[in-house]
C-alpha cells in the first residue's frame, strides 16, 4: 500500500518530465502578438452564474464612459440610466432561461458593475472578478479574469462560467426597469437594479475614466 512519501516521490518524478521551456516562450510570444482565438464552446446546461458572467460581455459592448451614471442608492434610478448606458450601475440577475426550457429563478447572488474606466466587476459567490475589456464595433473582447471557484456553492457552475466568459457577445434590451440579454448560447437572462447588498464602490472610482 502506498504512503505519503511514495506520493511525494512520484510527483517529484513527474515534475521532471516537462516540455521544453524554449518552445513555450516562443508559443507565448506568438500568441501575445496576435489576437486571441475565439472560443465558442457548446453551451449546454449553463448555470445561472455562468449565464450571468457571460452576459457581462453584452453589457460591456455598449460601454459609453461619458454617459454612465454613478452607482445609485435606488434601483429605479439605475434602471433609468441603463436605458442609455449600463455603465456605473449594479445589476442583479433575477432569472434565466436555457434554450427550450422554462425560465428559472436565480438563487446565487450575482451582481455586475461596469466602470467608466473600462474595467468591470462581477460579484459572484464570494468573489469579485475584475478585469478590462475592449470594444470593436459590435464585437467585444473581454479579458477573462483568472479566479478560484472554490467559494461557490457549485464550483462546476463557476468553472463553466469562466469558459463562457471569453469572447462572448449577445444582444440586450431594457424595458420596464428590466434588462434582458439574449446570449449567443441561446440563453435569456433577466436583470433588475440591484439593491446595495454588496460592498458599494465609491462613486469616484466608478466614474473614473
Amino acid at each position: 500500500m502506498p504512503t505519503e512519501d511514495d506520493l511525494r516521490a512520484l510527483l517529484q518524478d513527474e515534475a521532471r518530465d516537462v516540455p521544453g521551456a524554449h518552445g513555450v516562450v516562443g508559443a507565448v510570444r506568438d500568441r501575445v502578438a496576435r489576437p486571441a482565438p475565439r472560443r465558442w464552446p457548446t453551451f449546454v446546461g449553463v448555470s445561472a452564474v455562468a449565464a450571468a458572467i457571460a452576459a457581462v460581455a453584452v453589457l460591456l459592448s455598449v460601454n459609453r464612459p461619458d454617459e454612465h451614471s454613478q452607482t445609485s442608492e435606488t434601483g429605479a434610478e439605475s434602471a433609468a440610466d441603463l436605458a442609455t448606458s449600463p455603465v456605473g450601475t449594479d445589476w442583479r440577475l433575477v432569472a434565466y432561461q436555457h434554450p427550450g426550457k422554462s425560465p428559472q429563478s436565480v438563487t446565487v447572488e450575482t451582481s455586475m458593475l461596469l466602470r467608466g474606466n473600462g474595467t468591470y466587476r462581477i460579484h459572484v459567490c464570494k468573489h469579485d472578478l475584475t478585469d478590462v475589456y475592449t470594444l470593436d464595433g459590435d464585437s467585444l473582447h473581454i479579458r477573462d479574469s483568472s479566479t478560484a471557484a472554490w467559494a461557490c456553492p457549485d464550483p462546476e457552475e463557476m468553472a463553466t462560467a469562466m469558459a463562457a466568459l471569453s469572447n462572448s457577445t449577445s444582444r440586450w434590451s431594457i424595458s420596464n426597469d428590466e434588462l434582458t440579454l439574449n446570449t449567443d448560447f441561446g440563453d435569456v437572462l433577466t436583470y433588475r437594479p440591484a439593491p446595495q447588498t454588496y460592498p458599494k464602490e465609491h462613486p469616484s472610482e466608478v466614474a473614473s475614466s
Partner: protein
Amino acid sequence: MELDEFCREVLPASLGFARVLTADRGLAEDLVQDVLVKLCSRPDRLDAIANREAYVRRMLVNEYVSWGRKWSRISATAQVPDTPTPDPSGAVDDRDLLLTSLAALPRRQRAVIVLRYFAGLADDEIAEELSCSVSTVRSHISRGLAALRISEAVIEGAH
C-alpha cells in the same frame, strides 16, 4: 520586465508544477502557455508581482480548476513508461497504480493533493491559495488519499 526574463524566472518551476497538475506534458504546456499569455498581455503588471513563482502557480491552479469546459473534454491519463522494469517486489506495479489513480482524481482533489505533496503547502496555505476553507481542503485531501489507497493511518497523521 521583458517576457523572456519573466519566463526564465518562472518557467522551470511552472512547467514542473503544471506537469504534475495535469499529468500530461501536452496539457502542461497548454496550461502554462495560457497563463503566461494572460500575464504578458499586461506586461506593466509583471514588475509589481512580488513572488512570481507563487503567483504563477496560483494562476495555474485556478486556470486548471476553472477551465471546466476544456479540461472536461480532456481526460488526463498517467504516462506510464513503456519499458517494463523487472521488479520482483511489485514496487513498479504500485507506482503505476498510484499514477493511474492520481490521474483519475477530480481536478480539485488533484490540485489539493499536488499543492500539499508537491508544492509542500500546509492546509491553511492551500485554503488561502484556493479561496476556500481549511475544512474543504482537508475533505479533498481525505477523499483524494482514499482514492489513492493511501492508508488511513497516514491520513490521520498528515499535517
